[in-house]
């Protein structure tokens, strides 16, 4: 079942044809940014960089949820994990992310109860089974994951579960694109827009951004042929100087997105300003749990004593996830910062640009 729609898009001959098209069309020296971390990984894993002509550079954007999470939020979650009355539940990617003085993986080795889950619903189940503990789920992710976490809060409410909490550090993609275009020094010729996020928010959600900046945009899927198709679409727009907002992932992305998922998300969360690592405060780019659901909000239940975020000395994750520099240009890369012993989040997450560079390029 899962393999349908995979093999076709990993097919050598299909990809070859698109690569030939790219080579025949592309003349200008250009920089394209893939916004989504899953794209970054797929680009590296399939060796796309090695088959593109030299005049095309791919930059990785702020699309790895772990990487853009503010240091203060990481510190809060690590502080929560130290409490004896709390079980923290998290996606596995966060385990190794270094806080100012610890990480979840170190706290687990210290005997703290930290569970890796694959869905927020699993955290609800843990809460059900351990009524004497407070179960806190760390809600990290974009529009793709936020509706599922909203659904977990609705489930907890429906089932009368009183010991389940969410710490919401969710972020929204379109406001980040705006902020990125307004940053000094950012120089991007086109965007490969995320596939999964677009399934939820739909093509139209980028319309305002596109109308303001008139920059080539292509929504793309995640298989090698999908990404190559997105790149070809951008190159055609750049070479003809006719920018469009194009959806090359039509088999799952619609104009309006998944209305039901969006509704659940907006039923539970209010849109709020959010702090992004490397970018700073972006207006209306985060999600806060609505007043109506405040009994599930970890920020209401617990008191945190975390000062303002402490930037990690020498770490250039911020510049890397805005495409200002590439990982090898960071002074810590491969020296003191490695996947086994990461300094910054871009080296931790499987979707992080530094981790992908480290793993897949020589």
């Amino acid at each position, binding site marked *: 079942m*899962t393999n349908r729609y*995979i093999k076709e898009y990993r097919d050598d001959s299909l990809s070859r044809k698109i690569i030939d098209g790219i080579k025949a069309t592309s003349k200008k020296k250009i920089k394209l940014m893939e916004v989504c971390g899953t794209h970054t990984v797929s680009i590296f894993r399939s060796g796309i960089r090695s088959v593109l002509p030299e005049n095309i550079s791919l930059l990785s954007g702020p699309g790895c949820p772990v990487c853009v999470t503010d240091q203060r939020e990481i510190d809060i979650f690590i502080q929560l994990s130290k409490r004896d009355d709390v079980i923290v539940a998290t996606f596995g990617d966060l385990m190794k992310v270094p806080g100012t003085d610890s990480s979840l993986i170190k706290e687990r080795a210290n005997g703290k109860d930290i569970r890796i889950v694959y869905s927020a619903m*699993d955290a609800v189940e843990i809460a059900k089974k351990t009524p004497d503990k407070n179960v806190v789920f760390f809600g990290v992710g974009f529009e793709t994951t936020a509706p599922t976490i909203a659904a977990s809060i609705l489930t907890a409410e429906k089932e009368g579960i009183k010991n389940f909490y969410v710490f919401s550090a969710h972020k929204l993609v379109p406001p980040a694109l705006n902020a990125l275009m307004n940053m000094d020094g950012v120089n991007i010729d086109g965007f490969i827009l995320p596939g999964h996020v677009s399934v939820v928010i739909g093509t139209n959600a980028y319309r305002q951004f596109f109308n303001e900046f008139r920059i080539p945009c292509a929504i793309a899927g995640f298989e090698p042929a999908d990404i190559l198709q997105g790149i070809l679409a951008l190159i055609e727009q750049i070479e003809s100087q006719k920018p469009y907002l194009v959806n090359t992932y039509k088999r799952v992305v619609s104009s309006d997105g998944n209305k039901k998922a969006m509704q659940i998300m907006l039923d539970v969360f209010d849109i709020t300003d959010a702090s992004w690592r490397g970018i700073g405060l972006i207006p209306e780019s985060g999600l806060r749990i609505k007043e109506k659901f405040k009994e599930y909000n970890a920020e209401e239940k617990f008191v945190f004593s975390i000062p303002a975020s402490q930037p990690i000395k020498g770490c250039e994750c911020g510049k890397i996830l805005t495409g200002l520099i590439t990982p090898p240009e960071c002074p810590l890369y491969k020296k003191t910062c490695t996947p086994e012993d990461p300094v910054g989040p871009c080296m931790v997450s499987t979707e992080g640009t530094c981790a992908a560079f480290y*793993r897949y390029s020589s």
Partner: protein
Amino acid sequence: MKADKILLDHGSGGKASERLVRELMLPAFSNPILEKLDDGASLDINGTRLAFSTDSYVVDPIFFPGGNIGDLAVNGTINDIAMCGAVPLYLSAGLIIEEGFPVAELEIILNTMSEAAKKAGVKIVTGDTKVVPKGAVDKIFINTSGIGVISQDICVSGSNARPGDQIILSGTIADHGITIMTQREEFSFDAPVSSDTASLNHMVKNMFSASKDIHVLRDPTRGGIGTSLNEIAVQSKIGIKIYEKSIPVKKEVAGMCEILGFDPVYIANEGKLLVFVSKEHANKVLDVIKQDKAGKDACIIGEVISDNPGKVILKTLIGGERILDMLTGEQLPRIC
């Protein structure tokens, strides 16, 4: 070592495990036999060449589709000895059992161990049992050690790979690791997959009957073929080129990997081997492997190159190239 505490990562079979061995174990026990870092030790005692190996099994759950902790423990050590190019002969078994463990389950495990040993033609000749208070171990842990004899004309080691060698993989990858994952509470998937646990000593014996030009043997257990290939590239100071489209993965296993975001090249196998053999003898050895039930899907997946020493290069499905690095980070603890 930078870490001040042992993390699960240190037992993952990947980079952190390698650092633990290199930075703490090797300095503590330093000797030329250990320093080879092969699956087992190759010893010369008065002209008789012996292979000696040990492994501990802590798999969770202890019963899983395709086997249980018992046959896993027997097959695993037999394979480690076979990977030294030896004919395995005798095993020891050490059991650490949690207080309250059901005797009926112990009987099943012991019977499975007995059957696995018989199938492989080895004898379990010594053992030890410890029972510890509830909670001091989880149900049952098993250690097995074994010895075997290496014929005088066989010379295999992770450091023997040579440019031009063809790399044969004996079958589909990731079956064991994915099966264990589907059995875990946190996943609770109902997928038609089963562990590939099997002893490979008969297959290895037949391979050596066909050719003595076999340079490296390795069973890619924890850390998967990705980690094993990297270890060999470093040990032999050669480059390795692998063709992604040649690597066999069962449909169900590939699907599970997609859902869970795992790369099958890093997932554990318990009944597969990698063989590095001269180009001239590659097809002959491949034919022999294919005749074995556990090797019917065997194929050549790549070759040894003189460029990029210490590195594994993957030729991707779309014709691109990338580095295939060692596993970093815990993929899943207690897989074997």
